[in-house]
């Protein structure tokens, strides 16, 4: 029983989900109440996780559950960004009539699933967490059920994700079959010798994970799902599953398959390069901002994976730093998107931004900062994210990866510049509403200032992340 104090956050959030469900069933019109309660419970959850984060590595439940620096940090940014996602989306779901009790509950269950994924140290526990988060995400994607695009995106995501889960499961079973264990550490011990079975297992598992992180060539679902889902869900998609999947990526590559790095390194390098190039090139022709950010996130995941391909602690840390900065940039970008509202209608095409800077100078300035940061121009935070990754990549003398990655940033810069051009250089259109709810404004202010002022004290995140060592 003494183990339970370490898993208190997970227990707390599970109990909250059940209570909220009961409240939602028995109390009429309680959607807003539950939404706010969920947000509060996320804040308490964050406090509970931070409370545990001072502890050393702890194995729980027959070593199938692991709490260490990596899982703590990932959970903190996961739940932290979850809070902001809830804050920014609250007005949006009211306006488009999605304020139902299921919405916050699904988000909470998906976060619970991700927390389990992040902490898992066993194939079965990992798969359990993965399915919990995926099932919640299928429903969330099609949450706007009267909308054709939303239903399509839900279905598409479900079919493709189920396929990838199948592949993943097949990989897990192969790994289990050849290494005689489901425990990550045990797999590591048992897989010292090369055999094709485990290699196949690795390939299938990586395919499944690459799907979850929307890396090329398993990215096909991302643009449609991003565009079709309600914007608040898109924001959720863009950040939280990526954090969880990246941390599982790190875990798989550097715990059970650490000895096989000559097997998986090429795969990761390929996925990374393909994502960087494809994301950059495909985004050029997009007209819808949500679709564009889908391609942009594909290429950003390419950079995050480039750090993992290095097989070094420096690389892992750079990936984690990258995803931390990436999530802040996405929060800022989507906050701006939520502000493009006129007469209870949200606008999400690039043309709708035309001439925004004349009537909305502050909003445009934030977008300017965010877009230049996404493009990786110094001295904004996005540059440092890329800088850390390339620092790690070049340390391992992987010059090809570095040069391709940096050339892809030039291509990517083009489409970010195109949005800036439309905001700043093009003729103006009608004014958007200027009053926004407090949560949205705070999120935008915090994230923009973070991006803008990151260069003043860049070692903040690095110091925290440097505690995470896998090798």
């Amino acid at each position: 029983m003494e183990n339970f104090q370490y898993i208190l956050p997970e227990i707390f959030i599970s109990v909250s989900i059940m209570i909220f469900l009961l409240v939602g069933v028995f109390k009429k019109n309680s959607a807003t109440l539950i939404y706010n309660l969920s947000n509060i419970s996320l804040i308490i959850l964050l406090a509970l996780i931070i409370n545990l984060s001072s502890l050393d590595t702890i194995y729980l439940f027959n070593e199938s559950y692991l709490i260490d620096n990596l899982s703590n940090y990932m959970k903190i940014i996961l739940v932290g960004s979850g809070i902001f996602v809830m804050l920014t989306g609250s007005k949006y779901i009211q306006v488009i009539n999605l304020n139902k009790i299921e919405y916050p509950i699904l988000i909470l269950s998906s976060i619970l699933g991700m927390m389990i994924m992040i902490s898992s140290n066993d194939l079965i526990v990992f798969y359990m967490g993965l399915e919990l988060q995926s099932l919640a995400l299928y429903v969330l994607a099609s949450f706007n059920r009267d909308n054709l695009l939303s239903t399509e995106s839900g279905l598409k995501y479900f079919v493709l994700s189920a396929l990838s889960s199948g592949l993943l499961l097949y990989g897990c079973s192969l790994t289990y079959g050849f290494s005689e264990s489901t425990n990550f550490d045990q797999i590591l011990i048992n897989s010292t010798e090369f055999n094709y079975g485990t290699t196949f297992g690795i390939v299938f598992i990586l395919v499944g994970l690459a799907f979850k992180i929307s890396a090329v060539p398993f990215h096909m679902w991302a643009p449609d799902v991003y565009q079709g889902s309600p914007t608040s869900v898109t924001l959720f998609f863009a950040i939280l599953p990526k954090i969880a999947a990246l941390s599982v990526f790190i875990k798989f590559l550097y715990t059970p398959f650490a000895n096989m790095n000559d097997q998986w390194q090429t795969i990761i390098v390929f996925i990374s390069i393909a994502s960087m190039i494809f994301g950059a090139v495909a985004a050029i022709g997009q007209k819808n901002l949500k679709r564009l950010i889908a391609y942009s996130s594909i290429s950003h995941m390419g950079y995050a994976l480039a750090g993992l391909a290095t097989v070094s602690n420096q690389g892992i840390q750079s990936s984690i730093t990258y995803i931390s900065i990436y999530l802040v940039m996405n929060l800022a970008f989507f906050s701006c998107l939520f502000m493009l509202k006129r007469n209870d209608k949200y606008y999400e095409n690039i043309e709708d931004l035309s001439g925004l800077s004349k009537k909305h100078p502050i909003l445009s300035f934030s977008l300017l900062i965010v877009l230049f940061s996404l493009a990786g121009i110094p001295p904004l935070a996005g540059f440092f994210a890329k800088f850390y990754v390339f620092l790690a990549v070049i340390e391992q003398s992987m010059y090809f990866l570095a040069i391709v990655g940096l050339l892809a940033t030039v291509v990517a810069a083009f489409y970010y510049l195109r949005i800036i051009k439309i905001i700043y250089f093009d003729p103006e259109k009608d004014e958007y509403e200027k009053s926004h709810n407090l949560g949205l404004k705070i999120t935008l202010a915090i994230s923009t200032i973070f991006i803008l002022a990151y260069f003043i004290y860049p070692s903040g995140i690095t110091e925290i992340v440097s505690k995470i060592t896998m090798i």
Partner: protein
Amino acid sequence: MNFPILSSLILLPSIGALFILFSKSSSGKYQSAKYVSLFISLANFLLSIYLWYIFDKNSVDFQFVENREWLSGFINYKVGIDGISILFVILTTFITPICIISVNATITNRLKDFLIAILIMETFMIGVFCSLDLVVFYLFFEAGLIPMFLIIGIWGGERRVYSAFKFFLYTLLGSVLMLVAIISIYWITGTTDVEKLYELGIKAEYQNLLWLAFFSSFAVKTPMWPVHTWLPDAHVEAPTVGSVLLAAILLKMAGYGFIRFSIGLFPIASENFTMLVYILSLIAIIYTSLVALMQEDMKKLIAYSSVAHMGFVTLGIFTMTQQGIEGSIFQMISHGLVSAALFLSVGVVYERHHTRLINKYGGLVSIMPRYAIVFMVFTLGALGLPGTTGFIGEFLILMGAFEKNILVAMIASLGVILGAAYMLWLFKRVVFGEINNQELKSMKDLKTFEIITLSALVIPIIFFGFYPEPLMNSIETSVENTLNMYNFDLINNLASKD
């Protein structure tokens, strides 16, 4: 010296920009914004003059060095100046207030944003010339793209979007390879601190590739033939003040980079690639001079002349002689003043007549006599007449070139003649001749603020043309030191081969 004078120089304009950002303007005329920015930039100029005054010209070391922990464990924020960089800092702080005064005439919409952009730009430009760490340098070098992109794109002419994109993407493409090189240097030597790198040196086997990576960035920024094509577009479409900043200071970043990094860090590679630079420089000098001859747009003509002048600069730097490098630095300062002045002069008539086509002008001497005089001084400065700064720079560069390679020097000398040809022809067509266009007659001569800005540029061009000693004094020791290190490294390398 505990007061962080260089950081103050770097940060002051940004603080001013913040002030302007939060200041409320009454009646939409932005008077307060104008005065705040002018005050800030003048204060910065005085501070840099004071810096020059207390600067020890006989020391070979970097002075006013500040070294703070920044990216913990990797990179320190390190700034410092020597005799070379201080001149560029002063050039920057001198040109900025002139730009801000001239803003009056050229910018009508969103003046406040424009002033903020200029001040932020000044921060980045000073930062480039002060930084003593490669990463810090890269940060400032690249960051300048953002305000310049906006200056061209928001306040530019008809094809501003195309030009802004071209400018941004060309420069970015050149620079990303430099980033790879900088990170590689970090892993090869364990530091990106320039002073330490000078001491440690970089192994000969790495130098060629690293040099090429840096070169790709500097060549675009200089700009050297054949990657110069962004410059005419950017110049033509940018507002007058944008062109002034671009020509006077942004182009000098690359020349400065060549001296500080290419020669300083990779002497062996610099020696290997000397011929490449010579050839590219000569093509730039001859070819772009010929192109300039045929231009019908005044700004485009001056833009091409900038490419030719920068060709002289790169040629001079890679002669690796005391005269050549000193001449290049002098030429850069001179070109900074002269090209700024020429763009302002074009701005003066453009603002009155709204065209930059040369054949729409003619006979301005009888309508605008004062303008004709200052324009003449700048023209002569640009073609390098003795008694102006242009002459001293070109003369020293050619002297250096003769010492190394007579053929190169002879071809380069042709460029001087061509330079005189296109500048004098421009002057003849615009200022002399009959007044063909009756609309020209209504044009007014220079206004007070134009007299202030243009004469502020006339004075140093003539003064330093006759008496270059103060500038030469400042750079002499540092250039000598750079060359000593260079030769020392070369000899060591030869010795290690034997």
